[in-house]
């Protein structure tokens, strides 16, 4: 009976020690690899734009912005290339709009509808914005003679496939030209 107990104890020790020592020996040249496999590093590089990674590419404006006088709203279309190694869905995108010259707050903007973009493909995002009454006054008083006014989209908050990115003030600004709702030309 004691022999059986001894054999069972030896088996218990062996099934604990052998896998641990085997894994340790397999990674003896790179102990960090025990906890962080190389695939994770490669994936992180792809995502954040490491050595040859794509990184985050800013969207580019396509076409002319449209303005609806009645509702004081405008729409701008952007093209965005999904350079990540995976399909993504941009669920929402919000930001504040400021006058590029005076940093005057003009209103806010948001994505018209969620957009799904496959890996490596380019998708079109339509952003809708609304001017405040103060913004209309500012357009009239400060830019009355300009048909189009330079504005910047700041304080981005993007929801990509359930992950929300909030860019702090001054981190990323998207410049664009919008039709002046108070153009007196």
């Amino acid at each position: 009976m004691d022999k059986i107990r001894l054999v069972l104890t030896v088996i218990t020790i062996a099934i604990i020690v052998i896998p641990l020592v085997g894994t340790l020996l397999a990674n003896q040249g790179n102990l960090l690899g025990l906890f962080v496999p190389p695939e994770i590093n490669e994936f992180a590089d792809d995502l954040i734009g490491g050595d040859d990674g794509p990184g985050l590419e800013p969207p580019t404006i396509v076409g002319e912005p449209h303005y609806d006088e009645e509702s004081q709203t405008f729409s701008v279309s952007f093209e965005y290339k999904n350079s990540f190694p995976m399909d993504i869905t941009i669920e929402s995108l919000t930001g504040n709009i400021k006058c590029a010259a005076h940093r005057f707050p003009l209103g806010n903007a948001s994505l018209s509808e969620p957009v799904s973009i496959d890996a490596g493909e380019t998708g079109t995002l339509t952003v809708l914005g609304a001017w405040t009454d103060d913004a209309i006054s500012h357009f009239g008083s400060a830019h009355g003679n300009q048909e189009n006014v330079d504005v910047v989209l700041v304080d981005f908050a993007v929801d990509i496939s359930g992950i929300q990115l909030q860019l702090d003030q001054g981190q990323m600004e998207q410049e664009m030209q919008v039709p002046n709702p108070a153009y007196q030309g």
Partner: protein
Amino acid sequence: MATILSKINWFGFVGGALTILMIVVSMFYPWWQLTVGDDLIKINASPVNTNFGFLDASFTIPFIWALNVIGLLTLLLSGVAMLIYSVMPTKSFAKPLLDFGYKKPLFTFLFFVIGLVAVTMILQAILDFNLPLMGSATNTLPIPFASGVTISVFLSAGFQWSFWLAVVAATLCIAARLYHKKVATTQQPAVTTATVPSTTTAS
């Protein structure tokens, strides 16, 4: 036939069979699952198979893989020991097999739960990151290289049915140990004692 069946420790038999079934099930259905974002990242954890899924890609951490191999072998031997013991509970080797087998499903279960709780506590203490064990939460990722960018993620976690199967298997193995006395006592062969008359010799 009835005599043979009555000799079996049924708690041990079902406990051992469930332990082996649990190993097979745990290879495919994790005990605990964490989902990040809209199925963007998935962590499937069990003592025999733990993997990290990122969309179509799947990663295994070597150290955790080694722990999984230990868990798998431990549970497998425990299940086999319990099955052998339970059909022959009165044999001389039965008690060592029972002692070897009955605690391991419980210890594996405790090790898994304590490990999970420890990981969540460490993440909370060091990175101020709240990882839910059950339920959902929205958390801010502590990413040092992304200064000026706040990344929030929606996390959803929960124990799966295979976890509760493990609870049942561990409970039955403990019950087998408690029931062993009864099985062993009822199966003791009748011992006849004969009184040998004592003789005294005068020197």
